[in-house]
C-alpha cells in the first residue's frame, strides 16, 4: 500500500441499537483489504469495546481508523466526563456502568482491558470534564 487508507465514523451516544455498526463496517473494509482473520479480530474487538464505552459513558464521539503500511491505528475521541482514575479503570472487572446498562449485558469491566489486550499499543489521553481520546495500534507487519 502506498497511501494510507482512512475511515471515519460518528458514534451515536445512548444509541445501543446502532452500537457496534462502525466496528462491523471496519471489519468488512479490512477484509476487503486482505488482512488476516487474526488481525481483523483484534481490531474489531478493540474498536467494538471502544465504541460501546463511548455510547455508555460519553454520549458518543468519533472513531477514526487509519491503515498504514505497518499498522492499523484506531483513534476514539469523545467529549465525555473523562476517566478519573485510569489505572482503576484498566482493572478487569471494574465498571461504573449503570444497572440498566448492565442489564443489556455490558458493564463486565472488560472494555478497556480487552482494548489493551488485543492491541499492540494503547494510549489514553483523558481530561476530567473535557473528554477522552484513546489511540490504539495493531501492527500487521
Amino acid at each position: 500500500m502506498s497511501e494510507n487508507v482512512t475511515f471515519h465514523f460518528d458514534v451515536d451516544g445512548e444509541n445501543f441499537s446502532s452500537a457496534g455498526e462502525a466496528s462491523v463496517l471496519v471489519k468488512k473494509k479490512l477484509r476487503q483489504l486482505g488482512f488476516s482473520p487474526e488481525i481483523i479480530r483484534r481490531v474489531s474487538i478493540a474498536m467494538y469495546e471502544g465504541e460501546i464505552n463511548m455510547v455508555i459513558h460519553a454520549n458518543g464521539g468519533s472513531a477514526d481508523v487509519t491503515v498504514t503500511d505497518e499498522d492499523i491505528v484506531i483513534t476514539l475521541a469523545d467529549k465525555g466526563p473523562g476517566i478519573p482514575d485510569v489505572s482503576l479503570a484498566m482493572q478487569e472487572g471494574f465498571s461504573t456502568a449503570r444497572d440498566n446498562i448492565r442489564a443489556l449485558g455490558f458493564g463486565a469491566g472488560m472494555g478497556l482491558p480487552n482494548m489493551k489486550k488485543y492491541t499492540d499499543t494503547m494510549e489514553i489521553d483523558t481530561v476530567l470534564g473535557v473528554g477522552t481520546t484513546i489511540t490504539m495500534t495493531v501492527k500487521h507487519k
Partner: protein
Amino acid sequence: MKTHAVAEILGLRAAAGSIPEEFTGVYAGDLLSRAMSHVTEGDLWITIMSNVNVIAVASLTEAAAVILAEGVTMDPEVLAAAEAKGICVLMCDKTVYEICRDIASTAS
C-alpha cells in the same frame, strides 16, 4: 462438528436464518465483553441475552449461531437485524447447563 444431531436432541427452532450445517466450538455466557473475546468463528454461542447487541457481537465474532436458552425469545426488530446481518438465531427451552451437557454428549 455436524449441527444436525445437536439440533435434534436440543429441539432447536430457527428464529432467524437457518441452522448451520457445522460448528467448530461452543461458548456459553451473557456478558458481551466476555463473549466478544471468547466466541470464535464458527462457534455456537449460548446465551439468555436477547437484545440487539447480541447480534452485533455474533456478527463481529462470526459465530455459527446464537442459541437462546431457557425459552428466551427475541423481539421482531432484533430478529430483523439478525436476518439483515446473516446471523442465525436458534431458540431452545433447555437451560444453559442442559444445552452444554447435551452438546458435549452428542458431539463426543
